[in-house]
């Protein structure tokens, strides 16, 4: 347990610290929110219509940005050898890494999502459901994205490969999440969408670490 706590601390520090992905992802999100009115046109009605959806797009793309670092750095500098030889199995390592990724990248993005959506003209009473959906969706993004990151280890242009593997897997949570928010706004049944989003993320958390550990072992050998 001490080892896993130390690992989680290290992952959080690496992600927040210099060269980490968290601030980069936030900057990316803000840049996207700023550019959207310039690209789509500044009419409030049009912006309000695309605001919830664009928040999801930004969340998915920004998590994708930081995924390349998840295993690649440890693989290149030999730290993955050390992680493979600790008392905790690689499955637990993968879980801790994705959890840290969620805490440092997805959670701040989820907290910003309603701010950005409201700034773009979405009704403020959508804010709570936007946070919840983005937190749940972010969990799915981190754990599903981790599988892509682990599978692309050791390949040249890993970043491209991650995007190709992961983007189709990112489609369901975006559909469920954005659909639930829209249904909530229109006063329709939103619980089904949220339940499906939750189910997606939880199954990613349950299955992801095994797939990641297998992919890491394969890359090391």
């Amino acid at each position, binding site marked *: 347990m*001490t*080892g896993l*706590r*130390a*690992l989680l*601390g*290290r992952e959080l*520090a*690496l992600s927040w*610290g*210099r*060269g980490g992905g968290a601030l980069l992802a936030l900057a990316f999100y803000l840049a996207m929110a700023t550019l959207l009115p310039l690209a789509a046109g500044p009419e409030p009605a049009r912006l309000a219509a695309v605001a919830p959806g664009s928040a999801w797009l930004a969340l998915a793309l920004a998590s994708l940005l930081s995924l390349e670092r998840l295993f690649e*750095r*440890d693989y290149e*500098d*030999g*730290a*993955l*050898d*050390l*992680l*493979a*030889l*600790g*008392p*905790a*199995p690689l499955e637990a390592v993968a879980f801790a890494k994705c959890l840290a990724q969620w805490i440092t990248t997805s959670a701040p993005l989820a907290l910003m999502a309603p701010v950005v959506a409201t700034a773009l003209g979405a009704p403020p009473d959508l804010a709570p459901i936007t946070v919840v959906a983005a937190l749940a969706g972010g969990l799915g993004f981190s754990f599903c994205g981790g599988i892509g990151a682990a599978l692309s280890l050791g390949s040249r242009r890993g970043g491209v490969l991650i995007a190709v593997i992961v983007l189709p897997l990112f489609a369901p949570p975006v559909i469920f999440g954005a659909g639930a928010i829209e249904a909530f706004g229109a006063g329709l049944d939103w619980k089904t969408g949220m339940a499906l989003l939750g189910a997606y993320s939880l199954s990613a958390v349950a299955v992801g670490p095994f797939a990641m550990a297998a992919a890491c072992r394969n890359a*090391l*050998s």
Partner: protein
Amino acid sequence: MIRTLMISDLHLCRGDRSLFRGLGLRIEAGEAVALTGRNGAGKTSLLRAVAGLIRPTEGEISFTDADGAPLPTEDARSRDLHFLSHQDGLKPGRTAWEELLFQVLWTGGQRTDAEAACVRLDLGRLRDLEVRKLSAGQRRRLALARLIASPRRLWLLDEPLAPLDAERRVAFGEIMAEHLAGGGLILAAVHDPLPIPTRGLEVGA
């Protein structure tokens, strides 16, 4: 606790290339074996195979405890084996102490052991420096500190002395001698002889 490492009839391949076949080796507690051989002969691959990071094509690698009973391989590897490769896995942006403490806690050591290892390897003044500012020899000493701080029996060392100066080589020789005296096992890939009595094994001869 690993008491014996046994390798029998080992055949290793990297890609389509066969490195060596029929390699056998037995190391008892208190023994050090120096692996020699030309570049690319498979010394590092042998160490990685013992660590369980690569799967042998044929043959078996096993560990036994003090009673001669076989140990579960995964367990022996994850609790009682240190693998020090030429890549040290130290993150350039973190301080020497943060990285040492993580490696020690991860491999099952204690904070106090990490502090003692810091003193032993004369790392006190480097503690708060970022790893990127350390020289190759200093980084190696930082990596070696993990070996003393978290007690594990079997040390797999890949060119452990390469970046160290003459004085530090002698000092690390003493550390290795102590480890052997305490019932440890050392398997090291080397080009220069180690400063302790070793048995030699040429790989890919």
